[in-house]
């Protein structure tokens, strides 16, 4: 069974601080997505990483896919209150054609002004 372990589960920081969220597995994924979810809404896709070692930047957010495609990280620089939300990583099963995603447990981020 493929699992994705996300850490930390909860993070409360001050505006302007930097943070990193990790997503780890013992399984290889063909791709990995990061989603952000606000209370009462569905998750919204932030980025997809496909190639081992790939780094993608989205304004103050930097996403990295591990060389072996088993892990990923999300780094936020100078966090702002608008970054508050639930961050979810999800891996696509390379051996299956179902399109099913394996989701991590999520990281709840609170950025205080």
């Amino acid at each position, binding site marked *: 069974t493929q699992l994705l372990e996300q850490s930390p589960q909860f993070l409360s920081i001050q505006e302007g601080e930097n943070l990193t969220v990790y997503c780890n597995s013992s399984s290889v994924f*063909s*791709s990995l*997505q990061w*989603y952000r979810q606000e*209370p*009462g*809404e*569905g*998750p*919204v*896709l932030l980025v*997809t990483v*496909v190639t081992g070692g790939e780094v993608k930047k989205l304004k103050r957010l930097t996403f990295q896919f591990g060389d072996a495609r088993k892990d990923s990280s999300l780094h936020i620089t100078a966090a702002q209150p608008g970054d508050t939300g*639930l961050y*979810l990583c*999800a891996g*696509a099963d390379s051996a299956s054609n*179902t*399109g*099913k*995603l394996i*989701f*991590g*447990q*999520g990281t*709840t981020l609170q950025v205080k002004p």
Partner: protein
Amino acid sequence: EADIYQTPRYLVIGTGKKITLECSQTMGHDKMYWYQQDPGMELHLIHYSYGVNSTEKGDLSSESTVSRIRTEHFPLTLESARPSHTSQYLCASTRGGGAGEQFFGPGTRLTVL
């Protein structure tokens, strides 16, 4: 922006009632999914569909049922709601192939009294 819709957004009902949660997408996606999520927690897959007349149970056992008579429509039904069914229900879809990104609806927040 994803074109996937869920109704109702909020539903409060009494125990024993039959309910149907609606999900529609206008993107022509073959694969659709239903997830159950408690506030701030991970997503649990309860049903998925590869296409018309195809439905499968997900990783989390659920007393709900689904149908897929049309590509764009994937309703979920609970024959007799119980308080243990109280949760957020999220519908998602994805196109065939690609890196597996899923597009989510806004969710239905169900409360069973």
